[in-house]
């Protein structure tokens, strides 16, 4: 299990255990963490799972794919550390990961 911390726009921190193999988006949705929608279930088709990856974790979470880059372009308030959380797979290496959530997903 990897501990993932989601920090809402208003600053509320929620830490949950996520099974390796699930995505950061699934970790939020399945654990009822508000602020990530993931409407398309992780198909990189809707851009409603936008998160900001904490600087310390950017290397470990990897790079955006071309499709993700393209879709992310249409989310709001996109920063250099923005990712679509359905594209980040949880591994033991990501234990302790912190992501921040945007004000809204649509």
């Amino acid at each position: 299990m990897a501990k993932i911390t989601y920090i809402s726009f208003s600053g509320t921190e929620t830490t949950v255990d996520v099974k390796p193999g699930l995505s950061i988006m699934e970790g939020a949705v399945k654990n009822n963490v508000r602020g990530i929608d993931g409407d398309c279930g992780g198909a990189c088709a809707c851009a409603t799972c936008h998160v900001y990856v904490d600087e310390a974790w950017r290397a470990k979470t990897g790079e955006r794919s071309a499709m993700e880059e393209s879709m992310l372009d249409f989310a709001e308030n996109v920063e250099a550390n923005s990712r679509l959380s359905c594209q980040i797979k949880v591994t033991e290496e990501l234990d302790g990961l912190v992501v921040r959530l945007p004000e809204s997903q649509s």
Partner: protein
Amino acid sequence: MSDLNSHVVIVGAGHAGGTLAALLRQFGHAGAITLVGDEPIPPYQRPPLSKAWLKGEADADSLALKPLEFYAGENIDFRPDVRAVKLERSARKVRLSDGGELTYDKLVLATGARAIALPIPGADLDGVLFLRTAADAEALKAAVGPGKRLAVVGGGYIGLEVAASGRALGAEVVVLEREERLLARVACEVLSTFFRDYHEQRGVTFELGASVVGFEGSGGRVTGVKLSDGRVIACDAAVVGVGAHPNDELASESGLETARGVVVDLEARTSDPNVFAIGDVAHRPMPIYGRMFRMESVPNALEQAKQAACAITGRPAPAGEVPWQWSDQYDLKLQIAGYAFDVDEIVVRGDPKSGKFAVFHLNGDQVQSVEAINAPPEFMMGRQLIGNRKRVDKQKLANPAISMKEVAA
């Protein structure tokens, strides 16, 4: 008007029903919620069944919308393996297949649609499969593997996604389609041709304009699909993906208005103010197109779940959404926004041969729908244009050198 203590009964624990149950609690509904489903597992996503699931890249845990513990934790009475058999609206009762009954204050029908079965000889042979439920997907997965021959009846989304997954698993795949082109009901000819070429390049064989008249078998198991021209296509398993029929019988038998689907308004409310219908079973208004339609898509299930949750908890209705859907085949992502109603011109943006292009369907200079292949900007901006009805410069639209953001400005 809301009653946060009312008993809400949701019949159908699919994507729409499951999402609604969670939203009701999220919106502060404090009354009882009963969620009845005829499958043995909690609400889950169906789209991966033809893709990740089939390819062994997803399991039951990853498909579930919420873990089973979620329901008890939120005080949602989830009843699996139970079917609603009769609706008595005057008494506000739902009779169940296990002999029980539920009395509701608000009822939501989320009974979805069932795969259409071909009423032809041999349809009940082992190995003649559908793909609607997780149980179906389990059976299909067991039948597909290296060297296995899979006959796919129907060249729509299900058929093509299964074909792509089948090829990824090393099976031989033949797709049998009744019309002269693929995706005939849901996409334009440019796309039909594109997908046919893409699949053929990856080893799928197509028989177009092929009418299936029966299944042949041996020892109770399917061995071939018989066509109207007499030919038999040999196979080890056959998947039938020829469309789905809305499960609206509970509604129609209770006197609710149905039209191949339960008729609802933009609050997902039926002709009975205490009964709602959402998801694949609902026949709903589409304000952008000025007509009523039944949509079979996850985004629609989500939107209608939101509409019903807002109506029941007294929140203002959510903003209208532009309908959309997606299909993943091989490394292709097809994203579609809108529907091609009232179209007088199509504009192709980009070169199909590059595997990255979009087809816009226009009424005058307004976009009615867009089909985008590996082209998210075209999909996202197209969806925006469909919603805001902005007039576009068709020359700019057709020119990939001009960004979609500029085209839509």
